[in-house]
């Protein structure tokens, strides 16, 4: 099938409507991508924290090795511990030195003697943290029990707020975009009313008449998606150095894991951008298609 008046010509003849439609789709998809990255990024940080030793027991100096081993055995037999590791005074010093290697003053002041030995305990699930801390609280020779529950809780509520706000925001934008697309295509249909009537009279099928308008909506969707993708790509490259310092100490964050294939959110994997492009394209196509499809069925009733 050839058409003497191309889709490109149709779009070019109404540049401002086209810009409005593409720009709205771009904004919607860009915001969607930003929220998607924040939501997945924060859950990745969350699951990273959840997998880390969440309970640390610091011992007083008088606590001897045998009783620490007894305590370790007791905790392991509870069935609520995923892993447990002993950090001696010397190991603690090594960690301390590593963390502060750029600050000679801090290094000088500290010896292995003043650092406590500790047990780092990772629970099977965060819900066991309190039970585990209750278990060891009354043992003799324990200086302090620290657990990261507070940090994790804050992060959980923060993540869920981001998700809710993001969902509502994207929904509003999507509705606005739908109506802009609906009106744009509707106006074009009204503009081509005479042509449509003529096409019907010479025997064009309904699909033949509708097709260019639906394609137009699809082109808007794809154009908006590509724009959003390019923008998010630039933004991520730009913030990459800040991310490096912000996520210091976290080796990697997983964005997506399908059947053993892991796509890293951090550090940015090339495949992350491919997946993002696919998601944005799909969303753009859905918006473009629904907008134009509804416009066509609304304005082209015979």
């Amino acid at each position, binding site marked *: *099938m*050839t*058409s*003497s*008046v191309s889709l490109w010509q149709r779009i070019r003849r109404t540049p401002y409507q086209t810009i409005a439609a593409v720009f709205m789709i771009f904004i919607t998809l860009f915001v969607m991508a930003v929220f998607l990255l924040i939501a997945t990024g924060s859950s990745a940080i969350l699951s990273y924290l959840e997998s880390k030793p969440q309970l640390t027991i610091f011992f007083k100096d008088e606590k001897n090795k045998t009783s620490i081993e007894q305590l370790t055995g007791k905790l392991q037999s509870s069935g609520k511990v995923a892993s447990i590791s002993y950090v001696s005074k010397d190991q603690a010093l090594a960690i301390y030195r590593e963390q502060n290697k750029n600050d000679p003053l801090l290094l000088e002041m500290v010896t292995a003697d003043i650092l406590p030995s500790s047990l780092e305990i990772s629970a099977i699930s965060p819900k066991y943290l309190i039970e585990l801390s209750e278990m060891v609280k009354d043992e003799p020779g324990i200086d302090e029990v620290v657990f990261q529950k507070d940090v994790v809780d804050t992060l959980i509520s923060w993540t869920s707020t981001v998700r809710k706000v993001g969902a509502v925001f994207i929904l509003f934008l999507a509705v606005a975009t739908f109506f802009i697309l609906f009106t744009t295509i509707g106006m074009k249909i009204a503009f081509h009313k*005479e*042509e449509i*009537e*003529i*096409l*019907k*009279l*010479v*025997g*064009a*099928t*309904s699909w*033949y008449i509708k097709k260019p308008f639906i394609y137009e909506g699809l082109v808007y969707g794809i154009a908006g998606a590509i724009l959003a993708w390019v923008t998010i790509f630039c933004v991520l490259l730009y913030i990459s150095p800040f991310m490096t310092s912000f996520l210091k100490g976290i080796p990697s964050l997983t964005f997506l894991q399908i059947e053993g294939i892991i796509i890293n959110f951090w550090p940015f994997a090339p495949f992350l951008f491919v997946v993002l492009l696919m998601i944005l394209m799909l969303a753009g196509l859905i918006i473009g298609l629904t907008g134009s499809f509804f416009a066509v069925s609304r304005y082209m009733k*015979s």
Partner: protein
Amino acid sequence: MILFKDVTKKYPSGITAVDSVDLEIQDGEFVFLVGPSGAGKTTILRLIIGEISPNQGSITVDDLKVNKLKAAKLPFLRRKIGFVFQDFKLITDRTIAENIAVALEILGKSGREIQTRINEVLATVHLENRANYFPRQLSFGEQQRVAIGRAIAGESKILLADEPTGNLDPKASWEILKIITNINKTGITVITATHNVDIVNSLNKRVVKLFNGKIIHDEKKSKYL
């Protein structure tokens, strides 16, 4: 063949535009529909292409029962019929060649087939050197020839013309009639609604005369009366 059996069409305004009409038109015939304004000429043409449906009776075009045709099948009826309007109905932002191409594109013809056919059609309507003009750059007579070209470009075996010379001066009118007559000679059925007495009288074809929606005269090789 076009067959009307006891066809009545009443418009919502209450006017009976076509009243119990029986009409049979054979393949390859040339028929003038004549009568004063409001006699029902245009209504008959609109009934044939299924643009409106009758309140009573049946209309058949070849093997298609027009009054029972589903909307989705309507395009296939319209591909059998070329329609020429008094106001041409050309697409103003497309060239002459593109206007004719429309009738071929809807049939899914290839680019080369379309180009070949456009050249043939432009020759038939004597507009070979106007292919890349826009409709507003042509005279009314030329625009009407484009409309005729579009009507016969596709697969149509029937040409309906509603007052094709209504907007034209006598010279242009004769040119149009000459082209329509030539088209009829290739075997295409032609039905022309007109009240141009001179043209009807000079061609000596079948004349169907309508008055108040009824056929009051139907004779082969006739004059306007």
